[in-house]
């Protein structure tokens, strides 16, 4: 009986643990995936070149149900840096780091309010062909173009991204807006949102129908691969859960059979005393369900701890105790032990009361 209890408890542990992981992993992994960059882009609608940066706040409101990892605004303009025309991005570097944590930096990001500029790794080679990193700390002259005021900027660092950003320069958004006289204007905003395939689609629809002047675009590649990995993982978890349920079923059946065999005499006696088959069925099923309830209760608490430790170790992030999952695993345990008791109960009802008179 104790073994069956343990079996049920272990089963319930794994089930509630797995279901918790199943529910939590998409969220957690979704969060992990955000390390690979933005998954939602906001661009100007109607072929306009720029849009008002305050629209970012409107988008944040539409996304209020979701966790926003970061939202980085960009204004791209061609500037003259050391007499060369360079595509320059103005951005908020705090948000940029959240949206694109994979950017590798030598030196520092430009500090807010300072006249500093960040140079792409390819660009650094153009400026300083032999020793690119020597450019850090040096002054460059920047202007909006022929005949405009020139300002001196200090190179704060060199960035490697593996993409075309390496040919660009970056500076604080305010600075760039001022230099090109485009206050509050941005050409694109990159959002990193914790959301899965389907809800991203809904978000896209809400934004395009709800906010005028901008157009949302999903970064399909990331959204799709995220979705694929997650659905494969979920199938795996379901499979493991099904197998564990089956094993629990077998273990409980075996134990209940042993219990019935052990109590053959007692069953015979009860029948001799006038117990009807319904009485015997009710007793054993009741015992089975009680076993399931206790095992489930015990297991679902253990399962929570299990899922908690998985979550902490793999994702470095805790999870909340879920009452529906606890109830689900208790109910499942009761169903499993109930089903597992069916064959043993049949054996019990088949016991011949006459055995009590024979000297067995």
């Amino acid at each position, binding site marked *: 009986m104790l073994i069956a209890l343990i079996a049920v408890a272990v089963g319930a542990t794994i089930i509630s643990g797995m279901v918790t992981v199943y529910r939590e992993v998409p969220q957690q992994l979704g969060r992990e995936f955000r390390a690979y960059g933005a998954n939602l882009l906001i661009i100007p609608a109607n072929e306009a070149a720029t849009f008002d940066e305050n629209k970012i706040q409107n988008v944040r409101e539409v996304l209020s149900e979701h966790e926003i990892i970061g939202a980085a605004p960009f204004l791209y303009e061609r500037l003259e840096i050391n007499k060369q025309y360079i595509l320059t991005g103005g951005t908020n570097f705090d948000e940029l780091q959240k949206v694109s944590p994979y950017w590798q930096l030598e030196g520092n990001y430009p500090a807010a309010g300072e006249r500093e500029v960040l140079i792409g790794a390819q660009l650094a080679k153009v400026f300083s062909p032999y020793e690119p990193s020597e450019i850090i700390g040096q002054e460059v002259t920047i202007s909006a173009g022929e005949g405009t005021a020139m300002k001196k900027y200090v190179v704060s660092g060199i960035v490697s991204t593996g993409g075309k950003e390496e040919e660009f320069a970056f500076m604080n958004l305010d600075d760039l807006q001022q230099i090109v006289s485009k206050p509050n204007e941005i050409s694109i905003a990159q959002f990193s949102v914790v959301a899965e395939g389907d809800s991203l689609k809904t978000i896209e629809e809400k934004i395009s129908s709800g906010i005028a002047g901008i157009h949302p675009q999903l970064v399909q590649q990331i959204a799709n691969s995220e979705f694929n990995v997650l659905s494969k993982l979920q199938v795996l978890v379901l499979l493991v859960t099904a197998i564990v349920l089956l094993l629990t079923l077998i273990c409980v059946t075996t134990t209940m059979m042993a219990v019935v065999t052990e109590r053959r005499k007692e069953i015979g006696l*009860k029948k*001799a*005393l*006038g*117990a*009807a088959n319904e009485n015997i069925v009710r007793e054993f099923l009741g015992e089975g369900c009680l076993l399931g309830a206790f095992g489930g209760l015990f297991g679902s608490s253990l399962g929570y701890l299990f899922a908690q430790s998985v979550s902490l170790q793999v994702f470095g992030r805790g999870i909340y105790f879920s009452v529906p999952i606890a109830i689900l695993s208790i109910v499942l345990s009761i169903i499993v032990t109930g089903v597992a008791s069916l064959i043993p109960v049949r054996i019990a009802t088949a016991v*011949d009361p*006459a055995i*009590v*008179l024979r000297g067995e």
Partner: protein
Amino acid sequence: MALLELKNVSMVYNGKVRALDGINFSVEKGEWVAIMGPSGSGKTTLMNIIGCMDKATGGEVILDGIDLSDIGADKLTEIRREKIGMVFQQFHLVPYLTAVENIMVAQYYHGLPDLNDALTELKRVGLEDRANHLPSQLSGGEQQRVCIARALINYPVLILADEPTGNLDEANQNLVMKIFHELHAEGHTIITVTHSPDVGREAQRCIVLEHGRIKL
């Protein structure tokens, strides 16, 4: 009309072992009958049939006006529950239940368990102070008295006892026989199976079996 009537009853196990062969006898209400005979003569088989635990393969058994030969298993269980009180050689008490709980088990299947009724019945067999003891804490004679109390709890019309003293020493045997005498005096109908001529003599009447037939 007799409380129990057997007409030409026979029992064949597995189509070949003829355990009972043409048994005829009847037991009146209030009678105490002993069934005797050597090992393998069919005593227990007979008790199983009278006690509604098994059905005879031939003949008629009429208990309290009901013909047991043509009713189903569920009905047989019901009659056993309502009319029979059984005492076993091996006592068959549930090991994890106390004396009084063992009596209440029988009440439970019959209807509603009632602690006071169960205690009254224990008192009748002189064990009121052992009510909360487990079978393992009771002597063989005490266990058998609990067993008798359990058999009596639902007011059966017929008490069946298969070798009730078979596992007891003489002192305990006398104690148990004394209880049977009291029950008989109160008007209970009793059938006891026994090997022992001493025990057999206590009954009003003796039926001796041999090779599944009644020896005259």
